């Protein structure tokens, strides 16, 4: 990790060089130490599928996988992801083939406005990895850290159930 000062503009800004592998591609960028991973993905790498829905780490719209674990990317600094592997919603499908969870969301009408969807899908992927055969109650508890205001969660629960079934 390299740290240097930029002196352009009205004052010095500290930058840190990081390398993060996102969806299989390594990216080396100089970033402010305070830059959130969510903003790194969106504003530096232009991967705008990761959404920011709150400023208190409640809503879960920004959920991505960091070294295989679901994290709220608004709660991680980009510099903390230095050297890590990140998977975002853009990296989930295999070419034109959706993951079981993505397909489940489409088949079961698990989304309406779509804003919470990327985070909800990334959380669901992690949930099914830990528990490939969850009960309804386990699904509801598993996604309780992600808010959706459109669906009443019912078809999201159905979508995850369908994905679990398809994964067998």
């Amino acid at each position: 990790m390299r740290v240097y000062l930029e002196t352009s503009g009205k004052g010095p800004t500290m930058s840190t060089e990081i390398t993060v592998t996102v969806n299989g591609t390594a990216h080396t960028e100089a970033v402010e130490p305070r830059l959130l991973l969510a903003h790194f993905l969106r504003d530096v790498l232009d991967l705008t599928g990761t959404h920011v829905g709150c400023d208190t780490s409640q809503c879960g719209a920004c959920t991505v996988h960091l070294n295989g674990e679901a994290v709220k990317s608004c709660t991680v600094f980009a510099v903390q992801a230095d050297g890590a592997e990140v998977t975002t919603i853009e990296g989930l499908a295999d070419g034109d083939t959706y993951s079981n969870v993505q397909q489940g969301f489409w088949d079961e009408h698990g989304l309406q406005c779509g804003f919470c969807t990327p985070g909800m899908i990334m959380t669901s992927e992690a949930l099914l990895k830990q528990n490939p055969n969850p009960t309804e109650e386990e699904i509801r508890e598993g996604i309780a850290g992600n808010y959706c205001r459109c669906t009443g969660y019912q078809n999201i629960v159905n979508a995850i159930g369908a994905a679990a079934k398809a994964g067998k």
Partner: protein
Amino acid sequence: MAVATFGESVKRTEDPRLITGRGKYVDDVRLTGMAHLAFVRSTYGHANIKSIDTSAALNAPGVIAVFTGADLQEELGGLPVGWMLPDLKQPPHPPLAYETVRYLGDAVAVIVADSAYQANDAVDLVEVDYEVLPAIVNGEEATKDGAPQLHEEAPNNIGFDWEVGGGDYAEAIKDPDVIVVKERIVNQRLIPNSMETRGVVADYDVGKGNITLYTSTQIPHLVKLLFSLVTGWPEQKVRVIAPDVGGGFGSKLYLYAEEVVAGIVARQVKRPVKWIESRSEAYVSTAHGRDHICDAEIAGKKDGEIVGIKVDLYANLGAYLSTFAPLIPTYLFGLMLGGVYKMPNIDCKVHGVFTNTTPVDAYRGAGRPEAAYLVERMVSRFAQEIGRDPIVVRRKNMLQAHKNGREVTTGVMYDSGDYKGNLNKALEIFDYKQFRADQRAARREGKLLGVGIATYIEICGMAPSAVASSLGAGAGLWESSNVRVHPTGKATIYIGTSPHGQGHETTMAQLVSSELGIPVEDIEVLHGDTDQGQFGTGTFGSRSLAVGGAALFNSLQKVKAKTHRLASHLLEADPKFVTFSNGTFAVEDIADKTLTIQEVAGQAYAAANLPDGMEPGLEEVSFFDPQNFAWPNGTHICVVEIEQDTGKVEVQRYVAVDDFGNVLNPMIVDGMTHGGVAQGIGQALSEQAVYTDDGQLLSGSLMDYALPSADMFPMMELDRTVSPSPSNPIGVKGAGEAGTIAASPAVMNAVVDALAHLGVMHMDMPATSEKVWRAIQDAKEAQRAARATARAAK
């Protein structure tokens, strides 16, 4: 995908981009040279601005400019009110306050910087010297003598006094057999919380003098019109684009200060500018919903006959009038006080009151949930008072089924409905008798189990423009469509509605497909870009299919008429003998004489062989304005179990039987019902905006405001009855708000039912664990005291 039919659950065409992260919301718009805005907002509920020092902010890294309200006073104008009432007080509403701030979050200045981080850093460097004034946040208290005053134009903080009614309530309760039951009904303030906050990107074209606003809105065309009226910017030079919009629930149905400021600032700095609302900012700067304090009375006889209802309502408007604020607690509330009942006498008075709080406007249901909650709570309260089953009382007072218009006490005309049939279906699915037996058994085991029933009817399909205009609407409420069939027989349509989760790209394509026989994948649905098509009104009030879908249907009939005439001409057949089905024109009894609609479309453009007088091309526009509103209705039944020791309420079962008229896409309608019900349950059990007396918002972030999560709900059981609406040619009624309207009274009736044997008669929302636990303790204490009194009397 093939040709779709009306009534088929077509999978959504929006979803492939949304499940892969390829949607495009406002924050995803990136323009060359784009700068970022951050607003400096009032930290007090009520204060005079003595001075603003922006010098430190101007010297901060990346800052391009800082504008105060005084700097832009001329250019910004004042925010408009879109609905008039007699004697409505309209105090000026500057987009940036320059003399006085009247609520926490009132914007006083805006920073323009190279990055969003830098803009937000500079906010803290702006020094505003405030003279703090006394504040008032309660809508009833604000009207009393000595209360702090917000606007000199509105003495006693009263924005309007309004009334509606029918029959003669005062006379009706003189009957000695009539019992009057009174209750104070509070409908708490809510914060809408669409998952995408608001945001705007303003792109100023220096050469042409044009402005493009990308904004997260439900009403792009009205934003264009209102922005033009407010700023004086010529309307033809204003373009508004609503890209993918992440929910609205009514809260994106207005012209907001930030949209105006962004447009003006982009012109000032000659760069595109972006503002994305943070969640905590949204809690103070995006309109809130509900906030009613109401003295209610219901009157009836011992046999269960209800003779009337009386309401005296203090509706909190917040600090200023938001665009549709005057409409929500008046017509959308008062006209619905009869519910699905005969309700021969209605007396409703409404006082709209300014307070030092965020402006209040439409939130999912908008006036109708408040009315349904009040009516259904009072009907159950009345049944409890006279010791009768709430179902029996409801059935005794229900309107008879009707198919084509029934005038009710408030003077409006319900379109169609079979209210008893709907109730019966819900009871059958639920098995009410069995539940009462289970409840008795549960009580013997010390469990608190309750059932709540709520019926509802709502005024939807917002149009008839002439009626709306006579009631105060500042714009027509019709809807529009444009259908363009291309020479290859594929189609592009432009709709005037503006979806933000409702799936119009799917349902409108489905309607085109079912009428013209063109496969869904050959149809592109455009919306939300004012330069792409004709004016439209937008998406709110469960109106999109009932008004916009009807406008589309009418355009499709014009396309069908033209292609039928052209096909008959090309087939050299009498039009009487030319049939059209599944996209193919055929001549009766002649097997090989057929033309597909694609072939006919090609001929319409080739124009080599057109009938006399027919113009080339294949494109039709329709503007539809119905004669009446559409009136969805239904019955919802909820079971709750309450934990004795903690007061925690769990929703165990939820049955909803709705009458949405004809249903185009059942999957989408069910999905909207789930979401609506969830929002209603959220209001009943957890959500509440709380202000301190001096105007600080305690529930000021997602950490403090209890938004419902997935573990709060059971699987909802949905069913339908169908009474086609005579208000539009496709017989639909609208489904976006129904769940929210019915759910809060259904849940609260269940909570009270679970505690009824303890003597609980009413409880205000939200039924939090603490509130319920206290009610249980108070009821037990009252029972102990009553027993002691009885013993002493012996």
